[in-house]
């Protein structure tokens, strides 16, 4: 078994693993009910599914080409940005009351998404009256 054979097997295995996890993320997005459970599925594909694809790409480039480390950067930026997206989606869910109301925090008054300053509350009411 030559080195190239091992590399080909590793590339194929990484692609299959990546495809499987991305598929599961898609199934989860369709199957789970409710806004918050649904949020769990796509945030996972971003990590292991894409990670496996990038691994395949890296092994391929090191075997047949000059080698590439761009994938590490993609992975790094993904790890930094993916939680921010998930956090914003969760905040929208809480804000629109699309999920169960979260329990009160033990030490502080409320959660920052639910904390609307008083001037903004008045503005919201003005806007609602204006529309009516």
């Amino acid at each position, binding site marked *: 078994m030559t080195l190239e054979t091992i590399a080909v097997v590793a590339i194929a295995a990484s692609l299959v693993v990546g495809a*499987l*996890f991305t598929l*599961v993320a898609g*199934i*989860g997005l369709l*199957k*789970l*009910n*409710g806004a*918050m*459970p649904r*949020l*769990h*599925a796509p*945030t*996972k594909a971003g*990590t*292991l599914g894409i990670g496996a694809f990038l691994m395949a790409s890296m092994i391929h480039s090191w075997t047949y080409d*000059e080698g*590439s*480390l*761009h994938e*590490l*950067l993609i992975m790094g930026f993904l*790890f*930094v940005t*993916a*939680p921010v997206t*998930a*956090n914003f989606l*969760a*905040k929208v*869910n*809480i804000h629109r009351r699309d*999920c*169960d109301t*979260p*329990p009160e*925090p*033990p*030490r*502080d*008054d*409320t*959660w*920052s*998404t639910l*904390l609307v300053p008083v001037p903004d509350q008045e503005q919201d009411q003005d806007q609602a009256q204006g529309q009516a």
Partner: protein
Amino acid sequence: MISALFRLLLPHPALTVLLTVVWSLLQNKLTAGMFVFGVILGIVIPILTARWWPDRPERIRVGRMLAYCLLVIWDIVVANIQVAWIVLTRPNARIRSAWVVVPLDLRTPEAITILAATITLTPGTVTADLSDAGHSLLVHALDTDNPDAVRDDIKNRYERRLKEIFE
């Protein structure tokens, strides 16, 4: 004298290293010219942006940070398989989602950010919100029969290590 000059030229040494590495990776092959240009960028950008980092952590333990990264990557792989199994085999009616409130001992904003990102990246839990004065994290767990266990797991496994890294 020398340390003052060092502080003036390199207000944020870790950022300098990070920018140089990212620049070299962007080039995708290491040439001397591009490495030098990366070092120049790594020196100029922290100087220009130093005023936006007034309360940055003075020092972090790099070795423990690397160990923490490896731990998180391992957890991501293991937990991904668990969540995939739940999604594929468990009917919706038997998935017990729950809110979990995690009281924070960490006070550094950077450490809280990393903890929140870690919770979101490890499958099965998503960070949803921070309390208004920053003393608790709101976490959503996909499937748990014991929310207290999830909270203790997060505190013991991740928060304790981050506390050692940053404080």
